[in-house]
């Protein structure tokens, strides 16, 4: 199996270290070759595209170029914001040769044609058989798979599965023994990057998401976006102010859930770093 490059971005090294740790740990358990690309830079998420179009394209273009020049055909981008920026940049550069040339002049290198993978796509492509084989510890919980916005939109750029009712995470959690619930807020907004600037708004928006999930019987929320995670987890006190009754449902990354199902300890996948405590017996059906 050919090595897949890993672009962690800032989140996986900082506020969402456990996501990065769980991606690497899961890859190790499943024997999926994965290697962090060298000399990577910021993807420009949340601010660059609001400031300068060129900057918002040049930053991701350099990352794509590095991955290609370091010999990777595929690049795993676990952070949803990074994924979105890289996909968007690649989409625009592919569509416009003149623009591509200009950006290549700015970064002083060719962009190349590396294929960008989200965690969902990476797992669906390489991990399904391995998970079935390594699964030793089914986590029999009712969970809500929460996709947020960046991994499924915009339609023209992200050509994923059913955009309003995606199924990838739902199918993956089934492999871990969990039961995905059918709910309405899969792709609603959590408040995204407004966590610091407008925490109260995040509290309201994320509360609507959590309310629907818990109302329909979900015991945990499964995500694969650092922003969704930090909003639903770190901002829980703000969320609970807007809930009918406070929720203690933990928020797990898909890689953490699958990792634990494949025998990794909660510590190995970094569950202990969360604000809302995870206790398997608290979420699993008796």
């Amino acid at each position, binding site marked *: 199996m050919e090595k897949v490059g890993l672009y962690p971005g800032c989140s996986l090294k900082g506020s969402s270290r456990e996501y990065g740790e769980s991606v690497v740990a899961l890859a190790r358990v499943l024997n999926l070759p994965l290697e962090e690309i060298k000399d990577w830079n910021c993807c420009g998420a949340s601010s660059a595209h609001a400031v300068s179009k060129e900057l918002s394209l040049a930053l991701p273009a350099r990352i794509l170029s590095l991955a290609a020049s370091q010999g990777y055909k595929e690049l795993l981008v676990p952070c949803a914001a990074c994924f979105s920026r890289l996909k968007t940049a690649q989409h625009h550069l592919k569509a416009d040769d003149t623009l591509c040339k200009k950006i290549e002049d700015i970064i002083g290198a060719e962009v190349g044609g590396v294929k960008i993978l989200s965690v969902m796509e990476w797992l669906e492509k390489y991990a399904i058989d391995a998970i079935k084989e390594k699964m030793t510890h089914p986590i029999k919980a009712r969970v809500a798979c929460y996709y947020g916005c960046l991994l499924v939109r915009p*339609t023209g750029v992200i050509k994923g599965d*059913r*955009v*309003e*009712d995606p199924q990838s995470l739902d199918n993956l959690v089934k492999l871990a023994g969990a039961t995905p619930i059918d709910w*309405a807020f899969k792709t*609603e907004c959590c408040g995204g990057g407004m966590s610091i600037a407008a925490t109260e708004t995040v509290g309201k928006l994320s509360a609507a998401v959590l309310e*629907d999930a818990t*109302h329909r019987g979900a015991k945990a929320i499964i995500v694969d976006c650092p922003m969704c995670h930090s909003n639903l987890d770190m901002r829980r006190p703000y969320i609970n102010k807007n809930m009918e009754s406070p929720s203690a449902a933990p928020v797990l990354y898909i890689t953490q859930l699958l990792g634990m199902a494949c025998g990794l300890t909660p510590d190995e996948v970094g569950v202990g770093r969360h604000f809302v405590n995870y206790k398997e017996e608290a979420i699993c059906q008796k």
Partner: protein
Amino acid sequence: MSKIGVFVCHCGENIGGTVDCEKVAQEAAKIPGVEVSTDYKYMCSDPGQTIIKNAIKEKGLDGVVVAACSPRMHESTFRAACAEACLNPYMCEIANIREHCSWVHEKGEATTQKALDLVRMQVEKVKKDLPLSTIKVPVTKKALVIGGGIAGIQAALDIANAGHKVILVEKEPSIGGHMAQLSETFPTLDCSQCILTPRMVEVAQHPNITLYTYAEVEGLEGFIGNFTARIRLKARSVDLEKCTGCGMCTTKCPTKKVPSEFNALMGLRTAIYVPSPQSVPNKPTIDKEHCVYYKTGKCKLCEKVCPTGAITFDAPDEIITEEVGAVVVCTGFDVAPTSEFSEYGYGRYKDVITGLQFERLASASGPTMGEIRRPSDGTVPKKIVFIACAGSRDAAKGRPYCSKICCMYTAKHAMLYQHKVHDGESYVFYMDIRAGGKNYDEFVRRAIEEDGVNYIRGRVARVYERDGKLIVKGVDTLLGGEQVEIEADMVVLATAGVANKGAEDLAQKLHISYDKYNFFAEAHPKLKPVETNTAGIFLAGACQSPKDIPDTVAAASGAAVKVAALFSKDQLLREPVVAVVNRMPPPVFSTCVGCSLCVDICPYSAITMENIKDRAGNVIKTVASINPGLCQGCGTCVAFCRSKSIDLQGFSNEEMYSSVMAALHE
């Protein structure tokens, strides 16, 4: 030496904007054989044609080249002008300097040069042209109407009333189409059944109309005035001659839970069924997919109870052929299903229905006898939301077009709801209200002002179920983009009008064009709205694009007039662009060696072998002979002929060669 006239048209700015027409005319004058060369703003106009006619008469021209738009557009116009000036019309050629030049290139020297090259090619061709005469073919004065909805009914009645025979083919067991399913119709709220069913009966009883229901057109061969249609009469397992329509079989049928197509899958029917009480013919059909006998080999209860012995389980499909002179395609449309709308629940919520389903709920003959009740639990919805443009005008859904009828029927639905549920609240989410039409806007205003329907300008982002309610999340763009959330009991999606399943297949069988949405294409969007590009095949109704009843009826009558005009002549004139096998005096007779290769490769079976005999009746030579009535001028035989004995009139090898060499400036 030839005397050719070249006439360069500016087509206003269309050609003149990019091509230097004056220069083309000046340069063309220098081509050997060109007697006169001139340009004019609009050559197709009366003064333009007069220029051509006068030049022919005054200069004694023996060939004309008009450099203008596509020959599809005005070749016939200019040929007619030439004929009026006593020049054989086939001595007139069109150099297409619009579609092939001015429209596709930038203004400049090269563009003008290309236009001149195109003129040069046609000048060389016209020098080799031979005078031709039109071919006369007989007309079969019988029309085939495909589809028995309101379009087909109207077209069939109009043609039949003009005194011609009509074959009406409907694929369902009854005629009536979608109009029979509607409750009331906008903008007058008259009952659809009341105005349609008398016409259905009239069709069935008309002496000039032969009605085949539960039948489909399998294939169509031939050409204008002379088509042969193959029609499959699907075995309905009931002998229509013997059946009296007493209904014993349908009451006794043990399979009672088949979703009724007529009720838009909301009510139930039996396996042997009549779609609706007003069906024409009002006689049952056995649905083989659900019938117990066809599934298990046992039952035959209907046969036992039938007092006239009309049940025929083992009768096979029958294929018949009909000779017809014209075809009117009226195959209608369908509505997109709710399952297409991910954001509105992928069809999972029973109380999210289509507009067509709402029609059945509101109809007195529907599953609830006209009471508005929720499909999920049968309760009367107290709050109802209508979503217009569900899938229409939405490029992301692959349908950027407007379905045209939804604004009006949504206003009607909301109105009917308010008339039936007095304490109910209704909401309509819309993008724009498109109510162009006689008394249409007044109708919408009435819904808003008199019946109190709440119109909200904005889109609905999502519909989801929560505790038995449908939560409709949308936006009110007239209130500064304020978010709106409505807890509704029922949601009606005005889903897009789409082409019928099988439309593409039918178009290919009939050899007519269709667009990327599988709607059939008219020959010209403005001036030939009911014609197709295939002569003798006409269109009417929503198979072209979504249409309301008045437009459909108007189009159907329009198509019927075209058919009547076609049938008003005993013979048709056809373009002489057909292949001919050369003939020469004895002792050669023809260079054809009689290999008969062309007979097999002709796609239209137009070629036969003919014996040339002497006076004593002895066969001297056998040569190929082409029936000009059947030949479509495709040229396959010309390319295939090993002895180069076949030529296409109007596009002979010599003419094409001269033309090509002119393009190469040799």
